[in-house]
């Protein structure tokens, strides 16, 4: 029977299996093929904190979701159209997310009595009516993979491990993904292991051919390329983009990057990525603890490097003391906070935006510092450069907020022309600044103090955490001097507001409602606003990259709208700031589930406000 090809605008696929089943890899490969085909896309890995939770249990399930489309994609999608479940636990953990009437492909071989029991199923959900209303395909993936890899001289266990490639092959057929992208990758990956390579290729092809030849699947789908600006593209995760942004800031400033960090999920990815880039002169140091990491970075900045540190969750608490010192020393430094669900250890692999107020205020005394937030995986690149720019120009620590979702998600990125990227002038102090004297706290027009690095002849000075006398930097306990210095430090940070682009309103500028966001909710806000408009209602949106200080026009904009709704993956931290700063009755849409906000959830919230 000839198979028909059905056209689709957008599709959400979710691969789910045991932690050891290779689902992240399968998703990554599917993503690469999809990117190269020219679809727009967004991905969301969703994995447990345990490295290898007991096999077959619901809490050991690892999943990878991708939305791809022939149009602009802003989120990984709320509800998968297709779920690939490698075992009963994967089905159980994910079935509720699947859209009604959606497609569920299960590895039939894994649905035995024992596995069903481990997942907590009393009977087989694929045959007992549980999945009525879904299109269920039961495919004996393990059996076919074993048959396809017979005679290749590998063990049964090794053969079975290739079944994720069977799943990849099958879904690649379903959506007409180019096979050579995956096959080329396998060639590279298993270059030194010919037998394993052959097994993986055999499994991939078996999956692809299974779709094409069996009568189980009546048709495949086509998702046309999405329109995009001309250029060279790649797929990029937030973690990689952020690391590359820091390296770019180093190259474009001429300051060696010194990144000190303590291993913590999910910020460790930054340390991993940067430690590979030694040929860019990047110094990486895995410190003995979070506190040391911050202090090493600060010391490196004093010595003339671009000092940076990164952390997540509780690590941010531990760095607070050092950030206060950095405020007092007035040295450039970038602190990356890849936010994760708290309090305490919380949910280390789950996302949250709970650190906004911590970033702004989480230090003793009056200790203001600029805070910026990235809004998409690719935006992590630009935001990292921006953080470094502000840090160097204003001689201040800058907190860069990312989150677990941004760090792990990927999206296509038009690779920028390097020559068009901003340059950063370290503007080191070269000589005396007050007659024959050097005063370390004499300021320039930006209120920034001179950065005189050790080794510079004649500019010896001592700085420290004790309050300093305005200008000379000598220790001072004078009460009026303290008030003046506190005001200067605050004014310096405030001044950044005039040096950043104004807040832009998108969509229906004349709407009654403004949806204001920050950080990783950008995609969701755009998707939800689009749905609201499709429903015939008007909505304006705006997104803050600079949280401290906010762009100068933030107040006028939020005051212009009758209604302001702020969606956040916290209990309303930005809303609290907006209400306090601008006396605007901003409303909160909060979600604290360790997951991104879904477009449909926000759409409902918007429509509710508009009633």
């Amino acid at each position, binding site marked *: 029977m000839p198979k028909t090809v059905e056209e689709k605008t957008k599709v959400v696929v979710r691969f789910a299996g045991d932690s050891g089943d290779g689902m992240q890899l399968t998703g990554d490969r599917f993503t690469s093929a999809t990117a190269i085909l020219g679809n727009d896309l967004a991905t969301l890995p969703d994995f447990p904190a345990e490295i290898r939770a007991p096999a077959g249990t619901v809490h050991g399930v690892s999943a990878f979701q991708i939305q791809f489309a022939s149009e602009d994609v802003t989120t990984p999608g709320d509800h998968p159209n297709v779920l690939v479940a490698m075992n009963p636990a994967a089905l159980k953990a994910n079935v509720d997310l699947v859209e009604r009437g959606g497609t569920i492909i299960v590895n039939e071989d894994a649905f035995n009595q024992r596995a069903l029991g481990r997942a907590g199923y009393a009977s087989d959900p694929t045959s007992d009516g549980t999945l009525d209303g879904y299109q269920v395909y039961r495919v004996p993936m393990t059996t076919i993979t074993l048959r396809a890899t017979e005679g290749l001289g590998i063990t049964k266990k090794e053969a079975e491990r290739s079944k994720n490639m069977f799943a990849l092959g099958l879904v690649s057929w379903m959506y007409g993904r180019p096979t050579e992208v995956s096959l080329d990758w396998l060639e590279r990956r298993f270059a030194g292991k010919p037998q394993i390579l052959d097994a993986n290729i055999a499994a991939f092809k078996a999956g692809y051919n299974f779709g094409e030849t069996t009568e189980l699947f009546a048709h495949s789908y086509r998702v046309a390329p999405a329109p995009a600006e001309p250029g060279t593209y790649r797929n990029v995760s937030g973690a990689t983009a952020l690391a590359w942004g820091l390296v770019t800031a180093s190259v474009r400033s001429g300051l060696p990057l010194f990144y000190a960090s303590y291993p913590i999920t999910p910020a460790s990815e930054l340390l991993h990525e940067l430690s590979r880039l030694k*040929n860019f002169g990047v*110094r990486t140091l895995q410190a003995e603890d979070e506190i040391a990491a911050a202090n090493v970075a600060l*010391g490196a900045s*004093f010595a003339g490097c671009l000092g940076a540190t990164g952390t997540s969750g509780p690590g941010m608490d531990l760095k607070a003391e050092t950030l206060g010192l950095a405020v007092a020393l007035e040295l450039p430094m970038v602190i990356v906070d890849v936010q994760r669900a708290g309090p305490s250890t919380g949910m280390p692999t789950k996302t949250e935006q709970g650190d906004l107020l911590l970033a702004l205020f989480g230090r003793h005394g009056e200790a203001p510092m600029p805070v910026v937030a990235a809004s998409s995986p690719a935006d992590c690149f630009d935001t990292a450069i921006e953080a470094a720019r502000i840090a160097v120009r204003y001689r201040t620590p800058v907190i860069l907020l990312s989150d677990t979702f941004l760090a792990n998600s990927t999206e296509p990125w038009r690779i920028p022309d390097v020559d068009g990227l901003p340059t950063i002038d370290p503007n080191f102090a070269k000589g005396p600044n007050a007659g024959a004297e050097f005063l370390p706290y004499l300021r320039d027009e930006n209120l920034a103090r001179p950065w005189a690095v*050790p*080794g510079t002849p004649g500019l010896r000075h001592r700085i420290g955490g004790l309050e300093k006398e305005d200008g000379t930097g000598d220790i001072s306990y004078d009460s009026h001097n303290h008030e003046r210095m506190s005001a200067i430090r605050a004014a310096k940070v405030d001044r950044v507001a005039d040096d950043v682009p104004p807040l832009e309103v998108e969509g229906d500028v004349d709407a009654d409602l403004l949806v204001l966001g920050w950080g990783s909710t950008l995609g969701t806000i755009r998707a939800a606003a689009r749905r609201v408009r499709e429903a015939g209602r008007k909505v304006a949106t705006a997104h803050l990259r600079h949280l401290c200080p906010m762009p100068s026009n933030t107040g006028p904009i939020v005051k212009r709208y009758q209604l302001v709704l702020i969606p956040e993956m916290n209990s309303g931290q930005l809303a609290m700031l907006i209400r306090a700063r601008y006396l605007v009755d901003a409303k909160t849409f909060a979600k604290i589930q360790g997951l991104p906000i879904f477009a449909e959830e926000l759409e409902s919230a918007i429509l509710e406000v508009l009633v």
Partner: protein
Amino acid sequence: MSEQVDGKTTALTKKDFASDLEVRWCPGCGDYAILAAVQSFMPELGIEPDRTVFVSGIGCSGRFTYYMDTYGVHGIHGRAPAIATGIATARPDLCVWVVTGDGDALSIGGNHLIHALRRNVNLKILMFNNQIYGLTKGQYSPTSEEGKVTKSTPFGSVDHPFNPIALALGAEGTFVARTIDNDRQHLTEVLRAAAAHKGAAFVEIYQNCNVFNDGAFDLLREKPEGLHNQIRLEHGQPIVFDEGRRCVSVGENGRLVISDVTATPPDRIIVHDVHGRPSLAFALAHTSPTPTEPTCIGVFREVERPVYGEAMMSQIQMATERLGQGDLATLLRSGDTWEVKAG
């Protein structure tokens, strides 16, 4: 200040290293003697004050940085070794000193100290040990003896103290030494050896706090007791003290003991070896539980190991030679890419 004449630096003097800030330790504090010794000794290193950095933590010792006319960072409590690690690693060309105290280095900053030592960061760490918290006005410290009565231990401390030398040796310190604040000559000799050492040098300086813990080291510091109780370690020399009357020798079960020279066969007297196994240095650190008995001073151990900052820089150099100088455009285009054409 020294001057550049025909590209050569004229001799530096003590004045070149003294800042114009008024020194404000309590009158009679041992810190004055240490400051004077350091300022006097620095010129002989021949390193410009411009390339010298002092980093300190919190406590009375923390003020040291302000009194040196060099580059300096007065950091936060316990973190000086971490800040200094950033400086020394980023800039192997600098001469970086850490000034800390027993509370700063061994309590709140214990973790940073041991890791700076094991990494062998090129730091000269001077730990002023006065066995008390001075700046917070007299609480017991991690080196205070058991039973110590202070404001926070009115019934006596039940904490067992650290032995700083043993701790530094246990942390794989490559240079570990002890000296005394008021013995200018010995102090200077130890500083000289520390400065000459490549890598982390840990120097414990017994320092009298005449306000909150006066006399803690009298048995070693004062004459004539000091003469009897200081066990001066000298590399390659038999360990004999108390004007030649007593010695450190191998006793029963191979343990080190203090014995009368006349009653000890010469071949059982320990000959000090700073380059040898750490067990000897460790045993010498334990000749007395507290400085109230004969106690070793001098260099306990001095061995060579790769210096942290240099090792990091050589990795960067190797990677650059192997991969070529990093190129941003190439990096951003690494991996799978695709083209979108106009129209």
